[in-house]
């Protein structure tokens, strides 16, 4: 595990995610999509500068599949 400053991590509830892709549109700095449309988040730590964008992406997910985890 990479140890960037322990900011919150963005995590996916894979059982809920349907690959709609809003997260990748709203938070392209952290989220891209795999060939089936599901989110790819290589570095899940959310820097302070992106915190608002991350929260907006989480709120916009129609499947409520994104969360911020504290550790």
């Amino acid at each position: 595990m990479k140890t960037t400053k322990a900011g919150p991590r963005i995590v996916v509830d894979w059982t809920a995610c349907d690959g709609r892709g809003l997260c990748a549109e709203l938070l392209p700095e952290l989220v891209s999509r795999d060939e089936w449309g599901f989110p790819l988040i290589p570095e899940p730590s959310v820097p302070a500068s992106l915190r608002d964008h991350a929260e907006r992406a989480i709120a916009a997910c129609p499947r409520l599949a994104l969360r911020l985890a504290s550790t």
Partner: protein
Amino acid sequence: MTILFDEDVQTDAEVAAHGALMGPSPASQRELRAHLVAHGAVPAMDANAVLRLAVDSGLTGHGGAGFPLYRKLEAVIAARGWAIVVANGAEGEPASAKDRWLLARRPHLVLDGLQLVARATNATDAYLYANHRLDVAVLTDLLAERRHAGLDPVSVTVVAAPDAFISGEETAVVSHISGSAALPRFKSPRVTERGVRGRPTLVSNVETLALLALIARRGAAWFRSAGTPDAPGTMLLTVGGAVRAPGIVETGHGTPLADVLALAGGASTHLEAVLLGGYHGTWLTADEVTFAKLSRSDLAPLGASPGAGVVVAMGAGTCGLVEMSRVMSYLAEESAGQCGPCLNGLPRIANELKSVAFGGAGGRRAVDEMLRLGGIVVGRGACHHPDGSMRFLRSGLRVFAAEVELHLAGRCSRTSSDVVLPTAVTR
């Protein structure tokens, strides 16, 4: 479905010196009287004493992950609400039979252990989650007899696990007992906080509980007299494939893998490779088998772990790619289908492997492609099914590298039609 309870698991293999669970003879202790003659009653002890035994013995889980029992107990004790305890005997792994063996031959040790963890957590409800091939009526009768004899202050309900590879995954267990399908769910909150019907839940493998029942009688120091200091005690192993006496054996943690094969009668043909830990496990070369020891720390440098104790020997005449291909197709079918990367990725990976295993038409591109897709599925599911499946595949491609080249050249070393890795429990 009514299924033979006893006769379906071979148990003729010799029992190791520290055969805590199998000793003194592999004969059945399903009769309560036979159990009490062999082991006596569980000494009276309070919740703290049970927890202390779990700490002092160093007992870890025997379902695959090897997590210390005392930490699960502490998490459940610390959580708010009345606890529930579950003995997990789902054993969805087709190559494993040790949990069925235990529930057939040593059910009272498992149930004694279940009462001990119920006491430690002050639980109000207990469940026995049993492999689909076991007879629920037999287990229910046995529980009624125990209840009548005053052995079970917390009543136990038997729940049949569905016939599925992932039915024993902790969150799937909790979902099924709560009345839903046996499917994994998002891991937060943990089942120790919110498990069965939202209550704090301890899910523990049946072998772990049976060992706790023995520790309660004989003490933590007795348990630590087997195994190694950092991996104390014994474990049950299901040894299959190219060995002369396939079946269940019991051995101390840290035992050389070669000794385990010897306990199962030794290799029946020239040994090519061993699969350790089941279909989410790791392949080892015949050379690695000569020095590998069965403990988590000894196996870590080989990328392996004892897992839930599956050991399958592959002999000359079988083809590792053909065996792996059948298993990968099975694992793809066993995806719960909830998580996109697993649902979409595993069938593609299985097909690429099939194209190499049968005819080699996929060529080197297919090998590269299955590894690339593997990189996409790993770590992206609610459970570890994609991760475990890729551990199996990647280690196999390493161990069977020469066979891969043979297939790319349009050949195959297979001369026997034997199936080494079962993808459904036979009989």
